[in-house]
């Protein structure tokens, strides 16, 4: 590979302790190999419960793989992945901070002084459409609003690697589009590496350079990868293009059976 | 009459600090089996202080108390009918000492001093007040610190936190032995009491509610007999005799100290078990001086002590 490898997952397996003490460990993902080069936007799609979040946790250094290695910019990862920003699937805002402070904290941590951090946070809130909600505490926001605050919190730090776990899940189609464009803007500015988990195959294709499909768990693996040959910038109408349709159909065919398989496997797993 | 059976052979007795030498006759009576000899089964409850044992008596959870005679006077003022039946200590045994390195050579010099007492409002406190009053000082002329009657009293004196202290044995003996203090007034000896009170001043007594005495005359008599025997035994005992009788634990702190303290304390125990008229007056005078409530009350001293049981015990011997 000519380009520098931003995130390298080599032969990663991840296991969780079994439900009871006696039970054997539950292997979530097994033998996953995935290389993400600098400036690449990879979307990960897969049936629910297949191990997408688990994989992101491993890339973030929050979970230690049972076997295999994680490399970040070529160096084996020990401890946390400090180069990455991670938007969690679950709620992770600080309930005791207002929306504004939740966004500003990412900068403050890095030593930016409070006034500047807040000014920039205010701009970011406006970008995600929440300028009027700066003083709200998280419990006073709607689900989609909380997610957008989380998005701003991660993006304001401008990390070189972005790990995003269903960032646009609770957003309507229109807002999704706006947020997607925001993300692409940032990404194209300085060649960030993005790992983007989504359930929406269309979204995956319209945003990513490469779409990675994971198989049904347990012991899920990567069952297919597709480069997206559509040139950028892609506008909203990209979904109507034949290349898009073609790719969509192809990936969908691979994906469809996995879910049904997952249903069948889950009966015997764990 | 020895055939008479006790109305209440099982009874509970309260005391505020049983290991204190002040209450030695109780330990002697218990350990020498004098209660058993009388056919009594006495359960001894130890309290955090004399006041708490008295409260337990009034509350009805114990039958009799070995405590200070002054309690009987105070209770009369409060409308509680308490009567003492035998005197155990004829002198208070309280000693007023001052640190050697302070310019306090007599009670007069206590003006402005910080004086340790076992507890505020206790008899050790009144003892200093009484002495000061005799020398023309007011209670307010000094400040008082409660230091208890244990090791911490010794510690505070040694550290110099207090200038003088009114306390009991073994605290005093310990300080004397270590050469830290000089004695200003000593109520453990006959001569000392003569100087301070002009005579006796009853200390520990056995008291109970008058109801109890009336309803259980035989039991009361047997109790008094037992204590009387203990007093007789103490009359001739040496410190070593005492050490041999008391529980081993009492000696564990420091045996020499214990022997010395017993030696110093032996004179305070009552010889006859009877409180002389003079002693009662002395006790009342000391109280009245500082307690406005008592000053206002009319105390009938005759009601505080019933000597008939002691007389019978002495006669039986």
């Amino acid at each position, binding site marked *: 590979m000519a380009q520098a490898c931003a995130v390298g997952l080599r032969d990663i397996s991840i296991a969780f302790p079994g439900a009871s003490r006696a039970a054997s460990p539950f292997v979530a993902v097994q033998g996953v190999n995935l290389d993400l080069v600098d400036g690449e936007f990879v979307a990960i799609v897969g049936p629910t419960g297949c191990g997408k979040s688990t994989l992101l946790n491993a890339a973030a250094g929050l979970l230690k793989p049972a076997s295999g290695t994680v490399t970040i910019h070529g160096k084996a990862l020990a401890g946390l*992945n400090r180069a990455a920003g991670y938007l969690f699937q679950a709620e992770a805002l600080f*309930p005791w901070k207002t929306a504004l402070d939740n966004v500003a904290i990412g900068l403050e941590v890095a030593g930016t002084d409070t006034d500047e951090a807040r000014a920039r946070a205010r701009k970011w809130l406006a970008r995600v459409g929440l300028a009027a909600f700066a003083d709200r505490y998280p419990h006073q926001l709607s689900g989609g609003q909380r997610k957008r605050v989380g998005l701003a919190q991660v993006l304001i730090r401008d990390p070189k690697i972005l790990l995003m776990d269903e960032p646009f899940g609770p957003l309507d189609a229109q807002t999704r589009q706006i947020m997607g464009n925001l993300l692409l803007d940032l990404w194209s500015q300085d060649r960030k590496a993005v790992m983007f988990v989504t359930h929406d195959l269309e979204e995956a294709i319209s945003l990513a350079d490469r779409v990675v499909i994971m198989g049904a768990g347990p012991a899920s693996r990567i069952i297919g990868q597709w480069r997206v040959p559509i040139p950028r910038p892609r506008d909203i109408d990209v979904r109507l293009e034949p290349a898009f349709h073609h790719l969509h159909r192809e990936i969908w065919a691979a994906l469809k059976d996995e879910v049904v398989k997952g249903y069948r496997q889950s009966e015997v797993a764990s | 009459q020895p055939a008479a059976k006790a109305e209440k052979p099982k009874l509970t007795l309260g005391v505020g600090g049983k290991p204190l030498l002040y209450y030695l006759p109780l330990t002697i009576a218990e350990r020498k089996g004098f209660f058993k000899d009388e056919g009594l089964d006495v359960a001894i409850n130890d309290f955090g202080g004399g006041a708490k044992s008295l409260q337990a008596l009034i509350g009805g959870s114990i039958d009799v108390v070995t405590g200070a005679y002054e309690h009987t006077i105070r209770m009369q003022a409060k409308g509680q009918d308490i009567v003492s039946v035998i005197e155990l200590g004829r002198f208070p045994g309280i000693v007023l000492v001052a640190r050697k390195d302070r310019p306090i050579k007599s009670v007069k010099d206590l003006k402005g001093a910080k004086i340790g007492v076992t507890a505020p409002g206790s008899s050790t406190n009144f003892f200093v007040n009484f002495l000061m009053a005799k020398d023309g000082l007011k209670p307010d002329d000094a400040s008082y610190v409660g230091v208890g009657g244990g090791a911490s009293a010794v510690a505070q004196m040694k550290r110099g936190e207090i200038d003088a202290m009114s306390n009991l044995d073994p605290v005093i003996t310990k300080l004397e032995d270590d050469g830290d203090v000089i004695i200003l007034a000593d109520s453990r000896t006959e001569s000392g009491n003569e100087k301070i009170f002009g005579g006796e001043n009853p200390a520990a007594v056995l008291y109970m509610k008058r109801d109890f005495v009336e309803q259980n005359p035989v039991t009361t008599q047997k109790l008094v007999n037992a204590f009387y025997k203990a007093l007789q035994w103490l009359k001739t005992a040496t410190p070593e005799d005492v050490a041999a009788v008391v529980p081993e634990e009492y000696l564990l702190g420091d045996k020499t100290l214990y022997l010395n303290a017993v030696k110093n304390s032996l004179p305070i125990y009552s010889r006859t078990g009877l409180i002389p008229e003079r002693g009662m007056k002395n006790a009342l005078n000391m109280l009245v001086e500082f307690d406005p409530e008592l000053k206002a009350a009319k105390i009938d001293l005759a009601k505080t002590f019933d000597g008939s049981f002691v007389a019978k015990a002495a006669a039986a011997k």
Partner: protein
Amino acid sequence: MRNRFTLFTLQVLVAVVLIAIWHFGSTMKVNIPALSPKPFYPLDPFFFSTPLAVFERTFKDFYTGVIWYHLGITLLETMLAFAIGALGGVLVGFWFARKAVIAAVFDPYVKMANALPRVVLAPIFALWLGLGIWSKVALGVTLVFFIVFFNVYQGVKEVSPTLLANARMLGMSERQLMRNVFWPSALTWMFSSLHTAVGFALVGAVVGEYLGSAAGLGYRIHQAEGVFDVTGVFSGMLVLSIFVIIIDTLVSAIENRLLVWRPAPAAQA
């Protein structure tokens, strides 16, 4: 909750009922042959005094001003015990919660220390710290410390794992985690313990004075006990109670200030 006025009325009502029971129990003899052959006071004034006497004494103490000096000393001790104990509990609690090894090693010793009867420790404190206020403060600290410590320790460990993961991914150092995550998250726990601790700080100070001192409310109570002046004892306790309410109100005010971010507590069914 209807409104402040109704609430206040109800509170006063409770006080009135309690005082009425006390009053009648201690001034009117009842005759229940089953319990006692003679008529007796349900609440013997020898032990309980009477409310009138207690209020009168309390009023007099304030009026003549003798109480202020003692009250001042006790409050000073209480505040110091509370401040030092709570601070210590918070710091050590945080420290233990973040250093699992240290916590595991010292765990049995902390628990042993918590079980030592303070009454027995009082002489040792008096020995080390003298008879001034510091030995009383130390006694209060030994009570406050453990209450706060155990709660802060638990509070820090209760931080949501996702939240912590997020904070760490945002690049927070251990110190920043403290300030931005553990501290606010443990605040509820801490304040819960502070409400208990306020009372215990006062208890510690008073017990310390009771066991050896020259001033303070505990000293006065002890003095009153020595001469069987129950009215004095109860008056002392009344003053104590009043002041703990005042201190606790302060704590609550700070709590409400610091915890504005919380959703209103779950409504009633």
